[in-house]
């Protein structure tokens, strides 16, 4: 073959964050086929498809669109009132529908709700259930992949945010965070932004705790 000059290796410069390793799209994760989310298998090897943190068979994307899945708890905004229910904007390119048969409350355009995704079909029509209206507050939009970090292990991070700021905070899996209540909402928003930009670093809980302590006395 004329152009059979293949690249020799796939080893690129990597930086280490604790035990995690930042991987790039197309980088080898494993030399054997493995089922890893956000990865694909080609010719017996497993490759990453996103920029993410990889360690021990687990790949966490660092950036990315929200992909709706059943049983996700999400924060949504009522965007249209229809004959039999509501269209809800949930930070993704697909329409989600909340049937009024499932709910007792009535909503207006622009109301924020906390709901669960019941079903997502193959063309990504989304049905919502278990909706609850959220009190007046502010919406913080973050990247959906950072939400697990905002919630923390066993809710540790979000519990800390709630107790330090006195706000009611609802983090939706879709990347919308709703801050309500009489607490220091501005501090809560700043802390959430801090978690978002530093989500890939270790020891974040301690730094956020220090930040909240330093700023909540003012």
């Amino acid at each position: 073959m004329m152009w059979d000059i293949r690249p020799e290796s796939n080893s690129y410069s990597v930086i280490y964050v604790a035990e995690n390793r930042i991987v790039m799209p197309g980088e080898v994760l494993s030399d054997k086929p493995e089922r890893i989310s956000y990865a694909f298998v080609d010719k017996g090897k497993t490759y990453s498809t996103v920029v993410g943190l990889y360690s021990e068979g687990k790949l966490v994307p660092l950036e990315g669109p929200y992909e709706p899945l059943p049983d996700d708890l999400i924060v949504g905004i009522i965007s249209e009132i229809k004959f039999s229910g509501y269209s809800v904007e949930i930070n993704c390119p697909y329409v989600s529908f909340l049937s009024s048969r499932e709910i007792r409350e009535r909503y207006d355009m622009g109301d924020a709700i906390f709901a669960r995704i019941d079903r997502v079909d193959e063309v990504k029509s989304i049905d919502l259930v278990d909706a609850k209206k959220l009190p007046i507050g502010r919406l913080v939009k973050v990247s959906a992949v950072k939400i697990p970090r905002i919630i923390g292990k066993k809710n540790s991070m979000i519990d800390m945010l709630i107790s330090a700021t006195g706000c009611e905070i609802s983090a939706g899996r879709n990347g919308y965070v709703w801050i309500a209540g009489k607490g220091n909402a501005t501090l809560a928003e700043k802390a959430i932004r801090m978690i978002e930009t530093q989500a890939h670093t270790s020891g974040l809980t301690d730094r956020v705790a220090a930040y909240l302590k330093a700023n909540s006395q003012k």
Partner: protein
Amino acid sequence: MGATGKDRPKLFDSGKRVDGRSVDSLRSIKIEARVLNDADGSAYIEWGKNKILAGVYGPSECIPRHDQSLYRAVIKCRYNMAPFSGMEEHGRSGPNRRSKELSKVIKEAFENVIISENFPKTQIEIFVEVLQSDGGTRCAAVTAAAVALADAGIPMKDLINAVAVCKIDGQMAVDPGKEEDNFGESDMPMAFSPRTGDILLFQMDGLLSRDELAEGIGLARKASEKIRKIQVDAIAKVYDEPKEERFLVIK
């Protein structure tokens, strides 16, 4: 191609090219990822004197709806050259024959690597704005757009890049600048998928023999590995030094 005779400079003389480079050296490449606040992913590249901004939006609902597919995301690309971007007058901005062609080839290069089946009924938009041009903008555009797509978190099978090779005074050389592009005998831009070695974009202007073609592809592959390292460093830098605000300073 182009002019011959008196105004044609000597492009290759005693192992050195017109700008003093050797045959296998690239111009200086600087990439900065995540420079636009409102785009989902973005990158700014300075490749020699080329200055190019790439932005990625999506996946979002595909408009107009007759374009959308129930099976995959539709990838759209707009390459645009600013009217002030070159030495020559580029006239009114907006799509012309050349920019439509480049939009098409860039789009088709990315259709090979973006895993668009994950996002039915949506569109992924790639915008490339050439602010200053000096030969090889399509290669720089592909390289910057790949970084912007990775920054947007759109799943891809590979982080691709592109580089051109040229024939100057009978010698094959990598990464032609404007003069080599205009006065050289041949010019051949290529985009590579470094993971598999596949060629995703291949164009040729002028004539090359079989051996010259193989030599050119070899040169471009070596250069492509260097470019990939620069792309990876640009993306890693976003997470090494996180910024609160995104802003761009063009010098």
